[in-house]
């Protein structure tokens, strides 16, 4: 399988990349790790006339601490995320989730920016970013703006990115020390997208859940924040009745597609189970 012909561009700066994307318009696509785009091009489901390869752009890589925030460059690979002490220390849920993405070869190439910017409901990082309260830096020819992950996703492959804009970095408020976290992902095999997945970040006070956020992957056209489910567990010791209530509240907002991963009812059912497991594991990990 060979992709259709295209012109290859390799800018060296964000300004040049943005200028190219703006001047080439709809016929151009930015190329990050390429592990979503290149397979689509080989199937001729994507036929961009221009690819703007971001591998030569300085300043799009790296993980740094900026006060209370963790800033991750868009071209940081999943492999680099897994190798980062800062991530392991400050936001270990990203470490746990990255290990469940694709396989080692894909993680050497696949980037966090591509994962969150593509708008594929099957991608894992978007729901995690919503759970962590992250924001995305978008840069275009008219300047830069920050958009919350919770405001970014509009539909399958539809995001807040305007034509010519590039997602350049992700900024995450560091979760509180001693927080509990878990990402539970049901998949058919290594490398698969989620049949259903749930992310939980919570903090505890005096043996009760003090704060909680829950994100859901591949259970709707966009990642979801399960707010009612999270509210249901706050102030509780996460007894069986509460877990059941939270799972039901999460299931109520799921609207997965029926596909090779299963019919709608099944995916909602296992979605509820993922929420239950993630809550249970996050609770056990949190220090009171």
């Amino acid at each position: 399988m060979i992709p259709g012909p295209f012109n290859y561009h390799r800018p060296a700066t964000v300004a040049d990349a943005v200028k190219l994307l703006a001047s080439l318009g709809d016929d151009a696509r930015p190329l990050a790790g390429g592990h979503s785009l290149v397979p689509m091009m080989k199937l001729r489901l994507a036929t961009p006339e221009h690819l703007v390869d971001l591998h030569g752009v300085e300043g799009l890589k790296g993980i740094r601490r900026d006060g209370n925030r963790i800033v991750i460059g868009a071209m940081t690979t999943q492999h680099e995320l897994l190798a980062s002490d800062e991530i392991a220390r400050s936001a270990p849920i990203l470490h746990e989730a990255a290990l469940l993405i694709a396989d080692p070869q894909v993680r050497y190439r696949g980037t966090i920016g591509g994962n969150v910017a593509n708008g594929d409901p099957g991608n894992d990082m978007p729901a995690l970013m919503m759970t962590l309260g992250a924001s995305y830096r978008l840069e275009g020819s008219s300047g830069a703006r920050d958009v919350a992950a919770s405001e970014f996703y509009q539909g399958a492959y539809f995001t807040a990115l305007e034509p010519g804009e590039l997602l350049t970095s992700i900024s995450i408020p560091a979760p509180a020390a001693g927080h509990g976290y878990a990402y539970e992902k049901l998949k058919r095999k290594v490398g698969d997208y989620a049949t259903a997945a749930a992310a939980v970040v919570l903090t505890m006070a005096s043996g009760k859940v003090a704060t909680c956020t829950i994100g859901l992957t591949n259970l709707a056209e966009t990642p979801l924040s399960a707010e009612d489910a999270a509210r249901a567990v706050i102030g509780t010791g996460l007894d069986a009745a509460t877990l059941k209530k939270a799972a039901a509240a999460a299931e109520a907002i799921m609207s997965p597609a029926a596909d090779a991963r299963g019919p709608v009812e099944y995916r909602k059912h296992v979605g509820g189970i993922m929420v239950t497991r993630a809550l249970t594991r996050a609770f056990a990990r949190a220090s009171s």
Partner: protein
Amino acid sequence: MAKTHVTMKVNGAEVEGLVEPRTLLVHFIRENLQMTGTHIGCETTHCGACTVDLDGMSVKSCTVFAVQADGSEITTIEGVANADGSLSALQEGFRMMHGLQCGFCTPGMIVRAQRLLMENPSSTEAEIRMGISGNLCRCTGYQNIVRAIQYAAAKINGVEFQEAAE
């Protein structure tokens, strides 16, 4: 479409060629360089048969464009043997432990396992299994491939290979 001139170092030798931007790295290696040890399996980034080592990373060469590898260093299965032509520890492991049947996945398996053992020479069995999870084998059930990599790891670490009790 205009062709681009690329140069790269493949298995230690400088090579060059003219490629269309859409030429996949695996096609450049197999067709331009006539090195057919790197196999094309699924062509959809699943099977890992096309795995090569690109600047210290295991990559599926069916999902990288040759123009993106301009200026890089690549190792393929043709470059893994010892300098004197004798089998590398991994090649020997695959031979001794019967790590292949049809052999189609073997080049990708060995190139991937080589990077895995460079990054973590004392990989546990679980780490080896996760480490080769991007490579599919339809013959062996992976048991002997894992043993082959364990054999190589022991040899690299200078210890005697001991098989776990069944």
